[in-house]
């Protein structure tokens, strides 16, 4: 079951990318450029509307980068990813409202709850075959939403509203739209960078091994169950923090925000961006979250187009539109490393 790589041959060396577009896209400073654009964007337009749209897009990038760990790196299809965001948002909302705390102090609780959620959903299901996993996660996603809708601690169907702001120190209120946007961009960039760095780590390589061939990975001494569970927990934490940002952005959490459609949209961003490829996923997430704002009139056809695009993308490029390059840097003897492959500090790969 090899997908991206022809394992029968030695890894190909990276040559200079051919087309101008891919040269730009593969530029190692692209991440910094994107970060700079995100920082400068409010200088172009800072109406409440555009700030709101940009903040939403940034939160969506966060979700996509989390799901990318699960789907892109580890190859586990999660169709209920939004449930983790729900866990994060509800935990943050409930804790902060009960104790009248700024949201920022709920982070430990959110961390604990999302790790727990990852364990609860992952532990029983990760031994299953991948396609069972897909439908079970879908079921879990629905269970989470229905439960939130039926319980009174989660505010029932109206959800939680009047969630306190992120933090306020003197005159500096992090909830100010512009400031909140910058906070979001900073947090999201941090998480995106972290997940990009994870890819190259020992764990990241284990994930890709599991994705490419689980049995071979097992045979090579990788504890596949543990590795998969870790992917799940990482994904859950990413989603949970996305939920905290979401809760403070909307100042409200309601069960309607966590329907299957949302999970599907995040998945779409990951798939269209290129599974496993962090840059692609970020671009995919931005496109998916901004498109509806630009194409309001075509909202009827939006999801139809998304669905068709998924099919077409998979049929013609089963590894995603812009997949991660599926090979390891070739290390001949530890000294001779192609300069293009040298791990560069701080650049998102």
């Amino acid at each position, binding site marked *: 079951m090899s997908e991206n790589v022809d394992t029968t041959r030695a890894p190909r060396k990276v040559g200079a990318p051919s087309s101008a577009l891919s*040269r*730009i896209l593969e*530029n*190692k*400073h*692209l991440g*910094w*450029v994107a970060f*700079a*654009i995100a920082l*400068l*964007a*409010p*200088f*172009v*337009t*800072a*109406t*409440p*509307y*555009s*700030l*709101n*749209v940009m903040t*939403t897009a940034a939160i969506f990038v966060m979700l996509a980068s989390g799901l990318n760990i699960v789907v892109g790196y580890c190859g586990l299809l999660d169709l209920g990813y939004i449930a983790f965001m729900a866990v994060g948002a509800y935990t943050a909302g409930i804790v902060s409202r009960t104790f009248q705390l700024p949201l920022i102090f709920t982070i430990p609780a959110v961390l604990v709850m999302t790790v727990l959620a990852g364990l609860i959903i992952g532990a029983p299901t990760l031994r299953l075959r991948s396609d069972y996993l897909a439908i079970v996660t879908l079921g879990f996603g629905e269970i989470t939403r*229905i439960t939130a*809708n*039926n319980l009174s601690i989660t505010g*029932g*169907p*109206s*959800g939680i*509203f*009047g969630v306190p702001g992120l933090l306020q120190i003197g005159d500096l209120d992090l909830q100010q739209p*512009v400031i909140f946007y910058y906070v979001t961009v900073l947090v999201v960039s941090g998480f995106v960078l972290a997940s990009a760095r994870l890819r190259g780590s020992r764990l990241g390589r284990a994930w890709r091994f599991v994705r490419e061939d689980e049995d071979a990975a097992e045979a090579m001494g990788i504890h596949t169950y543990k590795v998969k569970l870790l992917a799940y927990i990482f994904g859950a934490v990413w989603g949970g923090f996305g939920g905290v940002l979401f809760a403070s*952005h*909307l*100042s*409200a959490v*309601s069960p*309607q*925000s966590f329907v299957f459609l949302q999970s599907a949209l995040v998945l779409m961003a990951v798939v269209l961006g290129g599974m496993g490829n962090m840059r692609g996923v970020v671009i995919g997430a931005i496109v998916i979250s901004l498109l509806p*704002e630009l194409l*309001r009139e075509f*909202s*009827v056809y939006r999801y139809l187009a998304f669905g068709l695009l998924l099919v077409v993308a998979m049929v013609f490029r089963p590894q995603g539109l812009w997949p991660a390059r599926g090979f390891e840097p070739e290390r001949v003897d530890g000294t001779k490393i192609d300069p293009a492959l040298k791990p560069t*500090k*701080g650049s998102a790969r």
Partner: protein
Amino acid sequence: MKFGKRGTALLGIATAVLLVSSGCSGGLLGGGNDSSGSSDTGPIKLGMVAPTSGSSAPTGVYMKNGAQLAVDEINKAGGILDGRKLELIVADGACDAQQAVAAANKLVSSGVAVSVGGYCSGATLPTLPIFAKADVPMIIPAANSQDLVKQGLKNVFLINGTGMQQSTAALEFIKKQGYATVALVDDNTSYSKDITTETQKQIEADGAAKVVLNTSVTAGESDYSAVVRDIMSKNPALVYWTAYYQEGGLVINQLKQAGYSGAIMVADGSVDPSLPKIAGAASEGVFATMTQTPETLEGADAAKWIASYKTAFGADPGPYSTQSYDAVRVAAEAIKKAGNTKGADIIKALEGIDGFKMFSGPLKFTPEHTLSSGGFVILEIKDGKFVLKDSLS
């Protein structure tokens, strides 16, 4: 951190593009706060967050048309504040919190003076602080959950009867008809749960009837045999369904098939021409608590209103067309009284309104900014149409 040549070039280009374009619009450096609604010339903008996509889209169209009709009429009559015209801006909230927040921000950015929208309570709740922060008064025509006014925001006004008032009307009718046992069924949305909770409270406080069942269903399913069985085992004299027509039709039909012979009443979310179609013959004789609709109003004014709606949009008015129409008129009235478009002045004017004529009756706000009288009446389905049964006055 050293950038490679290409990276520097990229960054340079990006910065240049951003800086050039920032000169011509409302960026952080652009100065000039152009998002305030209190400009003194040009048309006065009214904003409406309504669902124009998603499953509630048809209602969004009814609301939009109703409001547009009022805007056109006022403009034809010469506008307000020395001839300034009104302009209606509709943004799609899709009944979804996130989209509604985006829509509200869009409206605030385009400088609306008053918001006249709000349909789904769940999606309207998170938009309240956005309008409040921008000092924009909200006249909410449809959403009517108690949660909307519980936060005590100064700028929020409800002109649809609240769940509490609807419950009062329901109780009054229950007493009139002498139903001894009542089953309450909602679909676990905030709007419908609000009514069941409130109705149960009022019935229990009153003591004239007994609530034998208060239960919820999940929207979007086809088979409601579980709730039907529950109801049959309690065999109440009245079943009060407080959710929407899509499932309401199914529940009514399945109740009748199961041999339920008592009365059925639905709340205003189920008052839609589709309800009798979905429920079929089973819906004959079903009651509804509803504010006055143009169809149930008697007299020449209502007929004239329906006719002008039809000529303007080529379709019949529907649920919340009248409320949206009234919301615009109330907004215009308040702006006229305030003499300007400053949020605080309009809010003061709204609080001072007394006896302004609306479809649901003369308008006066309570201190909580809800209607002092809900104007709920009882309708009944006859030959597949909702007709007035009891005006409860």
